[in-house]
C-alpha cells in the first residue's frame, strides 16, 4: 500500500559511503497526491537538532512560562480590591491588567488591543511569513510538547513506526498508557491554568485541590483540557491544515519580498544520491536524503515549493543544514528566503532582504496609529462616568403649579480608588429646579450631593422642573453636570427635556 512506503522506517543507505542517513520515503502529505477525500495518514516526525529547534524550545519555554505564571503575579490595588495583576472578573464585571482597570463600558480598549494584535500579525506575516504559526501559535507549542512526550516514551521516528505497526503487547500498552497519561496531565494543567485568569488564583487553587471550586471552574477546566488533549495530542497537523483559517488568509499578506522557509531549487537541482569523492559538478546540492521530509511535523516535502500546509517551523532547515555540514557543502539549501531572491540569483545579483516596502510601511503606520490612539485614550481616561436615562413613561408630568417636570435616572460611576462625593447641578433654562430623594446631603445652593463608594456605580432618580412660561418648545436641551467635590473630575452632559406641544 502507498502509505506503507510513506511511513517506512528510514534505514541508513548501504551504498552511500557518506555518513548521511537516507530515508527512502515519500512525504506523507505530498503536494501532488493531496486529496480532500482521504483518510488521515499518520505522521511520525523525526527529532531535529539545530539553531531553529533551539529557538523553538526557548519560545516554548517563554510562552508557556507567560501562560502559567501570569495569573500568579500579584499587584496591590488597596484594601478590598483583587490583588491579581491580570484578572478577568466576570462576576464583578471588571478587567484588571496591572495598573489598568477596565469597566464593561470600556470594552473598546480590548477591541483596540485586538486590532493591534491583528495588525501586528499582518506586519510579521508580510515581513517573515508565518512566524506566528511556526513559533508562537498555541497549537504549534502544545503539539511540539506532546510530540516531545511521545518521543520520550516511544522513541524517535523509526521506533514509533515499529511500535505503531506492532501488535498489542504489554510493552506497547505500557508505552501508550504512559504517553496518554502524561498528555492528559499536560492537558489538565493547561485547562487548569486557564481558569486562574478568571478568579483569584491562590483561592481557586485551594478550592480546586479541596474539590470545592464552582461548577463553572470545573466545566471550563474540563472543556479546555479536552481541547488541549484532542487538538495538541491527536489532531495535530489536521488543525492547521483543515480547521484554521489563518493559512488561507495569510497568503494575501505575503508578496515576493516576504521571507519564507524555502528550498533553493536553483542550488539543489538536479538532486540525487552522491558518493564520497564524486564531483559536485553538473549536479545540485540535494543528495536526496529526505531528512527534510522525515522531520516535518506537517508531513510535507518542502522541496515541492510554498505550500498552504507548511507552518514554517524551520525544522527542515535544521535537518538540511546538519546534512550539508556532513557532506561539506555550504549551509542554507533550505533557508528563509524570498521569491524575489530567486530572480536576483538568476540575474547574478546578491541576495537581499528588503524589509521596508509599501506593505510593511502601511501595516506599521496603522499599528503606530492605533497604538497612539489607545495610549492617548488610556492616559486621558476619565475617572467618572455618567449615564443619563430620561423617563419615557410618562414623558413629562404637569405639576399643580403648572411647571413641567421630567424624571431622569442617572448612574454615576466612580472609577477612582477612594469614595467620592459628587455634586449634581442642572442648568440651561431660567427657573430650572432639581429635586431628588436620593441625596446624602445638600450644598449651600440646594444642589444634591451624592457619595459613591470607590469602584462602584450608584443610580439615582432626578426630578427636573421647568416653569411653563420658560418652555418655548416641546423639546428643549438642558445640561446636567456631575462634579467631583474637592477634585477636578466632572462630567457634563446635554440631555433633552420634554414638555407638552405648544
Amino acid at each position: 500500500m502507498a502509505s506503507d512506503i510513506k511511513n517506512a522506517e528510514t534505514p541508513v543507505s548501504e551504498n552511500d559511503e557518506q555518513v548521511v542517513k537516507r530515508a527512502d520515503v515519500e512525504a506523507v502529505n505530498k503536494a501532488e497526491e493531496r486529496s480532500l477525500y482521504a483518510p488521515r495518514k499518520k505522521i511520525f516526525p523525526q527529532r531535529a537538532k539545530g539553531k531553529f529547534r533551539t529557538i523553538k524550545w526557548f519560545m516554548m519555554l517563554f510562552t508557556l512560562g507567560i501562560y502559567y505564571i501570569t495569573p500568579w503575579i500579584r499587584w496591590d490595588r488597596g484594601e478590598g480590591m483583587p490583588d491579581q495583576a491580570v484578572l478577568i472578573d466576570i462576576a464583578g464585571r471588571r478587567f484588571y491588567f496591572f495598573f489598568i482597570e477596565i469597566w464593561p463600558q470600556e470594552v473598546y480598549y480590548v477591541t483596540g488591543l485586538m486590532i493591534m494584535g491583528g495588525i501586528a500579525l499582518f506586519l510579521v506575516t508580510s515581513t517573515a511569513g508565518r512566524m506566528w504559526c511556526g513559533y508562537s501559535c498555541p497549537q504549534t507549542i502544545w503539539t511540539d510538547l506532546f510530540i516531545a512526550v511521545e518521543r520520550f516514551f516511544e522513541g524517535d521516528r523509526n521506533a514509533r513506526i515499529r511500535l505503531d505497526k506492532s501488535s498489542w503487547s504489554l510493552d506497547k500498552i505500557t508505552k501508550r498508557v504512559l504517553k496518554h497519561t502524561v498528555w492528559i496531565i499536560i492537558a489538565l494543567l493547561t485547562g487548569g491554568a486557564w481558569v486562574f485568569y478568571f478568579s483569584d488564583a491562590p483561592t481557586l487553587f485551594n478550592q480546586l485541590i479541596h474539590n470545592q471550586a464552582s461548577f463553572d471552574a470545573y466545566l471550563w477546566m474540563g472543556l479546555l483540557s479536552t481541547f488541549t488533549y484532542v487538538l495538541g495530542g491527536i489532531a495535530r497537523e489536521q488543525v492547521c491544515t483543515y480547521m484554521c483559517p489563518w493559512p488561507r488568509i495569510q497568503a494575501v499578506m505575503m508578496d515576493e519580498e516576504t521571507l519564507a522557509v524555502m528550498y533553493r531549487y536553483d542550488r539543489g537541482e538536479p538532486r540525487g544520491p552522491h558518493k564520497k569523492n564524486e564531483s559536485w559538478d553538473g549536479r545540485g546540492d540535494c543528495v536526496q536524503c529526505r531528512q527534510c521530509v522525515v522531520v516535518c511535523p506537517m508531513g510535507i516535502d518542502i522541496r515541492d515549493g510554498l505550500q498552504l500546509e507548511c507552518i514554517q517551523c524551520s525544522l527542515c532547515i535544521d535537518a538540511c543544514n546538519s546534512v550539508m555540514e556532513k557532506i561539506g557543502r555550504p549551509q542554507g539549501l533550505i533557508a528563509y528566503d524570498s521569491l524575489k531572491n530567486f530572480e536576483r540569483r538568476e540575474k547574478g545579483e546578491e541576495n537581499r532582504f528588503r524589509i521596508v516596502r509599501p506593505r510593511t510601511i502601511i501595516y506599521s503606520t496603522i499599528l503606530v496609529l492605533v497604538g497612539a490612539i489607545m495610549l492617548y485614550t488610556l492616559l486621558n481616561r476619565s475617572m467618572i462616568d455618567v449615564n443619563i436615562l430620561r423617563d419615557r413613561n410618562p414623558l413629562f408630568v404637569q405639576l399643580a403649579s403648572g411647571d413641567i417636570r421630567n424624571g431622569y435616572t442617572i448612574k454615576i460611576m466612580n472609577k477612582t480608588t477612594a469614595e467620592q462625593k459628587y455634586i449634581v447641578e442642572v442648568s440651561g433654562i431660567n427657573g430650572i429646579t432639581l429635586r431628588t430623594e436620593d441625596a446624602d446631603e445638600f450644598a449651600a445652593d440646594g444642589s444634591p450631593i451624592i457619595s459613591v463608594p470607590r469602584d462602584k456605580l450608584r443610580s439615582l432618580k432626578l426630578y427636573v422642573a421647568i416653569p411653563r412660561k420658560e418652555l418655548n418648545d416641546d423639546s428643549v436641551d438642558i445640561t446636567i453636570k456631575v462634579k467631583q467635590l474637592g477634585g477636578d473630575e466632572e462630567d457634563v452632559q446635554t440631555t433633552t427635556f420634554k414638555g407638552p406641544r405648544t
Partner: protein
Amino acid sequence: MSDLKKEIDDVSGVDTTGHEWDGIKELNTPMPRWWVYTFIVTCIWAFIYQFLYPSWPLITDYYEGYFAETNRDRLNDELDNVAQQRSVTLDKIRSMDLETIRNDNALNTFALAGGKAAFGDNCAPCHGTGAAGFTGYPNLNDDDWLWGGTLEDIYTTISFGIRSTHEETRVNDMPAFLRDELLTKSEIEDVVTYVQSLSDSTITATESGRILFADNCALCHGEDGKGLREFGAPNLTDAITLYVTDRDSMIDIVSNSRKGVMPTWSGRLDEATIKSLALYIHSLGGGE
C-alpha cells in the same frame, strides 16, 4: 484481518466490499471511527438513561425512573425556595410601618421592585403603565392629591378604595347641581366663570358667581377654592384637573357631577403587596 478477502481498488487504493453490480464494485468506505464510537456511546447512554429518569408510559401512570426527577418538580422546588427566601423579607414589610421601610435601603429597594410589578398587574389598566393616568383616572406622578399624598394616605386609598364596596371606603358626594335642581343653568354658568377666574386672571367673575360659590361650593372646596383633602375635594385653582378643562365640560361637571370609583384592594392583595404599592406610588415623584 485476512488479506485473501481483501481486494484493493486500483484507482483509489481503497478496499472494496466485494459486492459487484454490472462490473461496478462498491468501495468499502466505513463511517469515521469517531462517529461510530460516538454513536455506540449514545446508544449505551440511552439504554441507561431509561432506567434513571421518567421514560415509559404506563396505562394510568408512567415509569418514574431511579431518580424519579422531572424538570417540573425541579422548577416547583426552585419556586418554593424563592418563596421561602422572600417570605422573610415580606414578613418584615408586613410588620413594619411604611416610614421605617422607606428608610431601610434594602427593604425599600425590595418593596419598590415588588410594587412596580404589582402596579403593572393591578393598577396599570386604569392609571396607565407609567402611572400617568387618563381623563378621570388621576396621574400618580404629580404633586396634586385628592385624598392626600403621604405614605399613609396612599396606603389607605389603595386598601379601601374610593366609593368602593368596603365599609371604610373613602367617599364623597358632589351634588349634580342642575339635575338635582339646586342651581339654574345661568347660575351654574356664573359659578363656572368664577372658578375659571381663580386660575386665569384674564377672566373677570361676577359678584353673583362669587356668592353662589361661597354658598354652594366652599363647604367642600374651601373659601379660596383650594380644596379640602378630608372630603377628597379637588383644588380648583391649580393647573391639574382630573377631567377636561374647557368651559363646557366644567358646566357639565357642575350640572351632573362625577363619581369615579376605585376598588378596594384589601383582601384582594396581600398586606405586603399593598404596602409595596404605596411605597412605589409614593416614589413616583409626587409623594409627600
